[in-house]
């Protein structure tokens, strides 16, 4: 599988480290609601289809990316920086 990093261009997936469900991880609840925090830490959906995931380009530009991948085919339909810091950069 190859991932087209918005800065570095197309790279082998062994340059990256995967963290998992981007939407679950990027919406952190306050620690006061223990049920919500339990969901945030442990509960994940396991979709057969499009999935937004956090990938870290550890051997390249060291940016966190949100990769939209079809879990059935590994087809990647979108890659974007996880924060706004990288906006304006081109591959």
């Amino acid at each position, binding site marked *: 599988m190859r991932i087209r990093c918005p800065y570095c261009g197309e790279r082998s997936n062994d340059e990256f480290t995967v963290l998992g469900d981007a939407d679950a991880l990027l919406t952190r609840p306050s620690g006061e609601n223990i049920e919500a925090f339990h969901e945030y830490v442990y509960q994940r959906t396991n979709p057969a289809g499009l999935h937004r995931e956090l990938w870290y380009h550890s051997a390249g*530009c*060291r940016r966190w990316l949100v990769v939209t991948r079809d879990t059935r085919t590994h087809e990647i339909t979108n890659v974007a920086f996880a924060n706004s810091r990288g906006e*304006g950069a*081109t591959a």
Partner: protein
Amino acid sequence: MADRTILNRSALAGLAKPGVIGAPTGNPGVRIREITEFAAITVIARRGRAAEVVEILSRHAGSPVADAAKRAGNASLSITGTAPGQWLVVARGAGNELDNMRADLNGIAAVTDQGDGRLIIEVCGARARDALAKGIAIDLDASVFKAGDAAQTSAAHTGLQIALIDEAPTFEMISARSTAESFWSWLVASAAEYGIEVV
């Protein structure tokens, strides 16, 4: 306490000795040169200030610097994009011009001295691409990786910044000093069959 002397040694001192290594082809396919005298800094633009940093870096380089994986500059000063809003600046020689650059970037970028923390080598020759392909996963073919292109990637599991200086081809390879010896082992093993000349 025993007297100690701190030696100023390049990353491959004692390893990259001038001479021929590998196949005795009579016409070495790969030439390797270590850059031993240089100074280096990393430049990281503060949030929202990348355009101003690009302008200042371009002025110092004497040619346009991009916020992209590109290498700009001249024989004595090079500026290479390593990540969005980040660059590695290398001044060959004593590197006094970096002081002026640091002053100009004050307040809009974080500038960090890299001291002698890097290994810099130039690899050229007719078989350079064949040798590098053995450990570098990105496409270095002349039709894709052109002069001025740069990439942050890895070679044989070692972090590597690579750029094409000219179409000879001459590749500039920059890696961490701490793993310079294993990087050298990989490079020599990969290029040996083509004949290596260390200059």
